[in-house]
């Protein structure tokens, strides 16, 4: 299935896009998604670390993605 991934902060500049699409197998976890993401966008290794949010909540590595989830890549935050 195709996952739409929202981009923010430095990842928007790195990939030169506000969002990207990633193909993952059915029942893929966040960990699987990160693997696919790194294969497709090795540039992401230039940042410290990042989290993944699903439906506007931080997601753990073992969370299983569902069709139509709103997924976002959250690079290290720096508000305040």
């Amino acid at each position, binding site marked *: 299935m195709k996952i739409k991934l*929202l981009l*923010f*902060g*430095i990842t928007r*500049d790195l990939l030169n896009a506000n969002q990207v699409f990633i193909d993952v197998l059915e029942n893929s976890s966040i960990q699987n998604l990160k693997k696919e993401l790194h294969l497709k966008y090795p540039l992401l290794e*230039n*940042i*410290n670390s990042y989290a993944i*949010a699903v439906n*506007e*909540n*931080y997601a753990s590595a073992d969370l299983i993605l569902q069709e139509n989830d709103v997924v*976002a890549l*959250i*690079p*290290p*935050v*720096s*508000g*305040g």
Partner: protein
Amino acid sequence: MSKTSIKVTSEKLNLNECYHFVTADSCGGIAAFVGTVRNDTQKKKVTQLDFSTYKPMAIKEMQKIAKLALEKFNIQKIAIHHAEGMLQIGDIPVIITASAKHRKAAFEACQFAIDRLKETVPIWKKEYFEDGEVWVNAHP
């Protein structure tokens, strides 16, 4: 009546609004934290800061922090407001106010909220220097 006021806005933040939100007849003290844009970082001159946000999630995370602060400390109300967009030196990116019967809880709640905000709320700042720009915290 709501005990929390959460806002992410491209308008100028208003300390008076955050102050008035937390006032209550039963409170004996109000603490406020106001973040301001500093003119230097690591000895480099900063010209401006650009704050971008994942707004719906930022609001959710700020709401979680406010709720936790209400549970953890003996406070009555809390406001957490954050700005987005381009800010100049001296501008205010964040205001937190908390009211409590006694001062200690109000101080502690403000400190907790700003510390947690910096760790979890999806807001990113880009620092602009005279000779370039950098996303804060993004690189090792």
